[in-house]
């Protein structure tokens, strides 16, 4: 033991020395100018550079954009991005990517990560993007979205796209700050956060948020009367992050209760007992370390708990409950040891320790379903970014995943990147991805009396193959234009059908989908300080067998954002978003053009920031296609909303 103690002591001294070497901006500001002149720098820290080499056409929304445009939730952020659209069924929000967002499906075809940690739950594999997102948006430094298959690195759920949310560093939010918000329909939100940087270089962030909204009273022609106080939502979240040298520890918890005025699943209309509650808890540890000048290591482990409980009042009170526990460990090595190669390799092991689902009636008490499952999954991947020539880059990646249920799957991605001129980048990308059947699709159900649905453990993964070509050009130092075309096919899509033998609903690998699309974008800054971002997407998504237009798939999406100072320090962010007509189960919804406007002022008084946002400014009536569980063929989306936000930094 003496030896270990001695070595621990040595290591402490060692790390103290190592600490002294690392330098932060705040330290740089304290250093005399003559010392600064002697420091070695790495150039080009802007995001544009790595994006040019990325094997996808990624989009970034920064904390500055979040403030300027008054984004309230991750769904608001995503709605501003090219080609994305949001549907709200009053319980959860869903993101459509490249014309694909089937009503009734959960958000399982996008992977949502926070600081590189997978956050999709382990029963529905859903990405939570509304107020049920794990982290308060005020803690977010940037949101990166990479459209297209990312399964060659990330495995399951990286199907239509990957969202990575990067949280702020303590050094960028020093001290204590509080936020108070007021929004339409008696909405209140408050939060307090702290960011601290210690002398030894350690950083700490603590944050707590609580919110309560009464919600709007809705009318539906399918029901008589008004659903009063049936759209209420309250949530709370806490988050903490500690980082020291290469180690980052994060813990968080989110709990959200939501009513639903639409009376799905044959529940009573206007019954205030209808409620769903989601509770998500996580703890993660990430360790990043340079093993040598050319070898970088990342180790990551996390523990997640996903609890859901739904109260469904009809003639009986039905309770639906799931409990998931997931542990993930992951290791990654990045090597630049070989001239002209950047090699990334890694391994991920996912242990779904608990996959519990219960459904029961209260009075008379009857258990309709009780499933307790667990599952193991692992993936191993390798990617090489090869510099073929000064102007040509080949990014080749491959990942193998193994599942208890259906076996193995191999998913490659190949991207050829041509830097034709310093300002023109062309990319050709091929990728394959899978979406594993989730625990709900596999096991939720029963064949006892009174059941409506049965499980299908023999489900195979959905498979997609995608082809994409993009051109990105810098018109000058202030303006960039982008153009791209894409084609993808999905086979074995998982959908529900009625089994004629026992009259039970069951998930099966059903149809195929094929989609063609094109997208253009323009963004830049005029010399008068006005910034523009805009995009137009056209996509045609069809079921291959019938050639039918896909449900909830707008052909046209257009986005425009303008921001700049309007008077003195007053900043305005205005957005126009157009969503084309969508097919529903029975007919079609009209197209909609929505406008949002946010005006804000930093340091209105020392330390006090004000932001006033109006959403759906012209109160445009529009609807999103709904699922068969609703009587409504389409559900009206939010009308005009407002939010007043005050931030105070102590």
């Amino acid at each position: 033991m003496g030896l270990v103690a001695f070595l621990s002591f040595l290591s402490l001294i060692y790390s103290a020395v190592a600490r002294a070497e690392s330098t932060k901006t705040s330290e740089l500001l304290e250093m005399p100018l003559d010392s600064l002149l002697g420091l070695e720098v790495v150039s080009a820290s802007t995001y544009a550079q790595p994006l040019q080499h990325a094997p996808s056409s990624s989009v970034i929304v920064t904390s500055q954009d979040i403030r300027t445009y008054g984004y309230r939730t991750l769904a608001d952020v995503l709605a501003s991005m090219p080609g994305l659209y949001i549907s709200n069924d009053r319980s959860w929000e869903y993101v459509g990517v490249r014309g694909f967002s089937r009503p009734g499906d959960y958000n399982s075809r996008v992977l949502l990560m926070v600081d590189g940690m997978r956050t999709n739950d382990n029963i529905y594999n859903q990405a939570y993007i509304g107020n049920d997102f794990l982290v308060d948006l005020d803690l977010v430094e940037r949101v990166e979205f990479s459209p297209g298959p990312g399964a060659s690195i990330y495995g399951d759920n990286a199907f239509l796209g990957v969202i990575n949310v990067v949280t702020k560093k303590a050094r960028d939010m020093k001290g204590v700050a509080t936020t108070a918000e007021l929004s339409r329909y008696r909405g209140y939100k408050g939060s307090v956060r702290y960011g601290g940087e210690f002398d030894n270089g350690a950083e700490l962030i603590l944050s707590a948020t609580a919110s309560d909204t009464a919600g709007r009273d809705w009318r539906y022609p399918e029901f008589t009367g008004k659903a009063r106080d049936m759209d209420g939502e309250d949530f709370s979240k806490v988050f903490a992050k500690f980082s020291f040298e290469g180690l980052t520890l994060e813990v968080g918890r989110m709990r959200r209760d939501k009513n639903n005025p639409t009376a799905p699943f044959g529940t009573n209309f206007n019954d205030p007992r209808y409620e769903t509650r989601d509770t998500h808890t996580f703890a993660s540890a990430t360790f990043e370390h340079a093993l040598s000048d050319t070898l970088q290591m990342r180790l990551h482990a996390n523990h997640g708990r996903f609890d859901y409980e739904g109260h469904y009042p009809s003639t009986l009170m039905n309770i639906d409950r799931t409990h998931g526990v997931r542990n993930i460990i992951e290791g990654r090595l990045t090597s630049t040891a070989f001239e002209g190669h950047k090699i990334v390799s890694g391994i991920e092991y996912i242990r779904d320790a608990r996959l519990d689902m219960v459904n029961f009636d209260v009075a008379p008490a009857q258990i309709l379903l009780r499933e307790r499952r667990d599952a193991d999954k692992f993936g191993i991947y390798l990617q090489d970014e090869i510099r073929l020539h000064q102007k040509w880059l080949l990014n080749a990646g491959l990942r193998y995943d193994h599942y208890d249920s259906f076996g193995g799957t191999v998913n490659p991605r190949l991207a050829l990147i041509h830097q034709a001129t310093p300002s023109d980048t062309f990319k050709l990308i091929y990728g394959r991805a899978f979406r594993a059947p989730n625990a709900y699709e596999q096991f939720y159900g029963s064949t006892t009396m009174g059941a409506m649905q049965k499980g299908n453990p023999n489900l195979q993964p959905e498979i997609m193959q995608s082809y994409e070509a993009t051109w990105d050009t810098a018109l000058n130092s202030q303006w960039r234009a982008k153009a791209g075309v894409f084609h993808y096919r999905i086979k074995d899509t998982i959908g529900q059908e009625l089994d004629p033998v026992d009259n039970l609903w069951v998930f099966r690998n059903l149809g195929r989908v094929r989609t063609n699309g094109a997208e253009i974008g323009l963004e830049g800054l005029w010399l008068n300080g006005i910034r523009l971002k805009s995009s137009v997407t056209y996509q045609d998504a069809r079921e291959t067998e019938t050639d039918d237009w896909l449900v909830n798939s707008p052909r046209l999406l257009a986005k425009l954002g303008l921001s700049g100072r309007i008077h003195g320090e007053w900043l305005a962010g205005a957005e126009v978003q157009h969503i084309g007509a969508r097919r529903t189960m029975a007919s079609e919804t009209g197209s909609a053009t929505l406008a949002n406007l946010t005006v804000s002022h930093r340091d209105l008084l020392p330390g006090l920031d004000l932001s006033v946002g109006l959403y759906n400014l012209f109160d445009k009536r529009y609807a999103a296609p709904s699922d068969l569980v609703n009587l409504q063929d389409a559900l009206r989306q939010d009308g005009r909303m407002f939010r007043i936000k005050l931030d105070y930094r102590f």
Partner: protein
Amino acid sequence: MRNPMKALLLAVLLWVSSPVSAAPIQEYELKTAFLYNFALFTQWPNETVTDGSPYITVCTIGQDPFGPVLEQLQGRKIREKRLVLRREISLDQVRDCHLLYISANEPENLARIREQLQDASVLTVSDLNPASTERTIVNMSIDNKRLVFDIDMMAVKQARLVMSSKLLRLARRVY
């Protein structure tokens, strides 16, 4: 070492404690510190529009490449005056700044900014290509992995700024 747990612990300890390869400094972190020093070693004449106010205004115009690091300047004090940050301002606001960072603009934009500034006492800073014929008062560039700066003394005089001799001494070139 009979106990394998102990061996593992030892290995982890050794590995965790191995020195971090000296963290390189990001370009814009260092440029932020340079901007701070330019403000520190410059004196603005009394007749400046904004003088008499307790602030020194640091502005950027054009695509601002700094990211969150520049926010470090907000609220810092120089000679009892608080630094105020105004990012990506419009052309008609340039005269309200003490220090104006101009991101690598097209030459015609720079000409318009200069026209707007005319004889205003604004310290212009940029990181234009040193080979460019266009100039701001201070120009930063990377030379042999080190950040250096050049000073256009004629322009300093025209803007009626007073620069400390220390700043002039540390410049790579004064012309």
